[in-house]
């Protein structure tokens, strides 16, 4: 037991980092669910593609033998590319795969199945074009192993700190956007009552597209962070992250932005604790158990749901 306690601080920090990533992905789910009342199954594939884009840019930089690679400018570069691609991909998805369906007022099944189809399509598109073998992020070239600090018995690498900072910054940024800007208000208005928002003169279609862009961009950023941390990415990584990120969103309260962040943190911590004290093979089950418990005992999540009373899609 003593040695378990010894690695506990380490695991907690790791759980924190994991949690912020889950939170970022969960935000994508939650925002889209808020405005469209639909689960964007393909969201995690966008996260995966973000990771690949980051890898591509990093590899290109390394191959071009650009000197003076410092994370201070490389990481933002990776993030920018990944977020842009991810955001645009999300907008395309909404425009071509979902909009024709929810405009038609099709049954709930339609958009959901289309989302599943999109997810499978994207996953395999990457597999076919990039190969089934994993790609490697040469993180050690960016973050030398020696860059770490010692806090309360835990050895925290600079990378983890950067992860937490970046994720935290993005979440804060999104929160400010949604709470304080006109755009953010229009997103909230559309999420709450689409028809009345239209009466106010809001271009509902545009707001939905923007929501998809933002949510997907965050997912793409999460992809880069995960790539940097785990150094190995493959076309299947979205799938394993999917259930967990969704659990985080539901745990915090679907549609609720603060909830998604909180849910992510809680899930990350609980999962790393479960791995520390339990059987690592079943770590994916932890997320699922939390999901079931939440849906059965407190379906609105910790901070409460934030969706319209009227059914939408």
């Amino acid at each position, binding site marked *: 037991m003593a040695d378990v306690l010894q690695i506990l601080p380490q695991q907690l920090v790791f759980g924190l980092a994991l949690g912020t990533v889950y939170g970022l992905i969960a935000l994508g789910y939650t925002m889209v669910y808020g405005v469209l009342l639909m689960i964007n199954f393909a969201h995690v594939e966008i996260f995966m593609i973000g990771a690949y884009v980051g890898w591509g840019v990093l590899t290109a930089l390394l191959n071009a033998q650009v000197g003076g690679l410092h994370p201070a400018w490389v990481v933002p570069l990776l993030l920018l590319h990944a977020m842009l691609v991810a955001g645009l991909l999300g907008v395309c998805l909404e425009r071509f795969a979902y909009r024709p369906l929810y405009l038609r007022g099709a049954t709930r099944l339609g958009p959901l199945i289309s989302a599943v189809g999109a997810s499978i399509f994207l996953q395999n598109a990457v597999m076919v074009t990039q190969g089934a073998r994993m790609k490697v992020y040469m993180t050690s070239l960016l973050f030398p192993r020696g860059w770490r600090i010692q806090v309360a018995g835990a050895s925290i690498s600079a990378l983890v700190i950067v992860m937490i900072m970046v994720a935290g910054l993005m979440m804060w940024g999104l929160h400010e956007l949604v709470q304080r800007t006109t755009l953010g208000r229009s997103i*909230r*208005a559309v999420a*709450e009552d689409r028809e*009345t928002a*239209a009466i106010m003169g809001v271009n509902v279609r545009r707001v939905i597209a923007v929501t998809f862009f933002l949510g997907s961009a965050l997912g793409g950023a999460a992809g880069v962070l995960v790539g940097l941390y785990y150094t190995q990415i493959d076309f299947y990584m979205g799938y394993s992250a999917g259930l967990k990120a969704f659990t985080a969103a539901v745990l915090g309260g679907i549609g609720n932005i603060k909830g998604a962040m909180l849910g992510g943190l809680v899930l990350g911590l609980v999962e790393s604790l479960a791995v520390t004290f339990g059987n690592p093979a079943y770590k994916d089950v932890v997320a699922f158990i939390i999901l079931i418990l939440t849906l059965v005992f407190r379906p609105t999540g910790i901070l409460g749901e934030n969706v319209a009373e009227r059914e939408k899609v």
Partner: protein
Amino acid sequence: MLRLTDVVTHYGPIRVLKAVTLEVRAGEIVCLLGGNASGKSTTMKTILGVVRPTAGRVEFEDRRIDRLPTEAIVRRGVSLVPESRRIFARMTVWENLAMGAFTRQKAPAGELAEDFERVYTLFPRLSERQHQLGGTLSGGEQQMLAVGRALMARPRLLLMDEPSMGLAPALVDQVFDIIQTINRQGTTILVVEQNAAVALSIANRGYVLQNGRIVVHDTARALLAADHIRRAYLGED
């Protein structure tokens, strides 16, 4: 200012509006009366482009608007206070009002401040509750918020869908007083109402809608005076 000519609107296979013709001139208060399911709300939705008419024309300031999307119509200067208010419960009073001014984002900050002032002067209660969530307001306060929100767009034509609904009589009088004040300040108003007496007491002219058709059209005074019309179409007070 607003003109509907032979407007026909369907909900699926059902013809809800059957050749509705009405007119609202600048500066007037016109009321549209009728019982349940007469097509009053549908008329409002048709004007605002929430539903598209199957036939006929809707013109605002001599330009056709029946093919335009809602946001374009709102930008032209038409604002709606929806039935049952439909304020954003999860936003504060201030944010609701700000949403009302959505189409005026390009306006200089000074103008917007004026508009907030105007609304707060009309509805002092809202000023007190600026940072409260809309959902925590009482029914009457929500109605004021809904009206204030519509005013933030500086509409030239204000549509109001059953403003008296669900309000205690004292509040109803208050609301209709405010409607008159707004009109005197220069806004043209089209009110849809079931409560004929109160609506006619402030209106210039009135139309009566029954089963999707205009059956009576006269000045408000004439409508109030004509007993048989009151009883036949408007029900007893």
